[in-house]
């Protein structure tokens, strides 16, 4: 439901009623007056297009948390890439191991999905994801080289599921090494080992 019609005794009340049905804030909609008499106003509210909606939603979440964000949204074939920049508070927004960033990503996608079900969104803070991905790729490659040279297994630091996928993808390009994990939960560790064919 992206469009809703509502009535009220004046314009503000009509908009207010419509917002209640959609459960959004006024910044997220465009409105149009359908009819207006002395004691009743009828309005049509429609949700803004994805880019604008994404911007207003993110801005609201962050400003009500006390941050002063600068939000840049880019669109490519993979979907929307949303980069948040703040002054001196980026570390808080990323959190330990990207925990807060994950939470932001989750809440933003969850709220956007109500109106734009097929939208792909990637939330980032000051390019953290990009940096982390590049770092992990380089690290995986470097360790794989040592493993190939020495023939001994080596462990990586504990990774999140998504980080592990990045490492896996990179290692698939390198011949002679394989990857397996030991442990569970927080103590789960990724091991890079020489594969049998290289022996």
């Amino acid at each position, binding site marked *: 439901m992206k469009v809703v019609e509502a009535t009220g005794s004046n314009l503000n009340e009509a908009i207010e009623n419509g917002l*209640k049905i959609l*459960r959004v804030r006024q910044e997220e909609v465009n409105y149009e007056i359908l009819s207006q008499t002395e004691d009743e106003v009828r309005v049509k509210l429609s949700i803004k297009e994805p880019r604008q909606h994404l911007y207003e939603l993110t801005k*609201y979440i962050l400003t009500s*948390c006390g941050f002063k964000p600068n939000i840049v949204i880019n669109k490519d074939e993979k979907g929307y890439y949303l980069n948040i920049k703040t002054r001196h508070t980026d570390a808080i927004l990323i959190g330990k191991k990207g*925990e807060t960033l*994950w*939470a932001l990503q989750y*809440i933003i996608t*969850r709220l956007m999905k109500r109106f734009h079900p097929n939208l792909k969104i990637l939330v980032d803070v000051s390019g953290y994801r990009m940096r982390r991905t590049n770092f992990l790729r380089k690290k995986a490659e470097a360790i794989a080289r040592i493993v190939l040279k020495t023939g001994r297994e080596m462990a990586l630091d504990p990774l999140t599921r998504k980080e592990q996928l990045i490492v896996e993808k990179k290692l698939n390009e390198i011949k002679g090494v394989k990857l397996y994990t030991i442990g569970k939960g927080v103590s789960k560790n990724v091991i890079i080992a020489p594969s049998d064919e290289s022996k």
Partner: protein
Amino acid sequence: MKDLIEYIVKALVDNPDKVDVKEIAGEKSIIYELRVGEGDLGKVIGKEGRTAKAIRTIITAAAMKQGKRTVLEIIE
């Protein structure tokens, strides 16, 4: 902050009218008491507690900026 919690939760539940957030502010910590209507508890907690965790993480980050701790209690 209170408004934000209310906004997020209202967007997720079936009975937005029954959502109520109370803020109890202490010197070093803030407690948010979130009440939701019958049957909406699961929607707020989410799969494996993901939604509740995400809300908690965001408010913790916001409070950290002011040097405070937060607790979010969810009550049906």
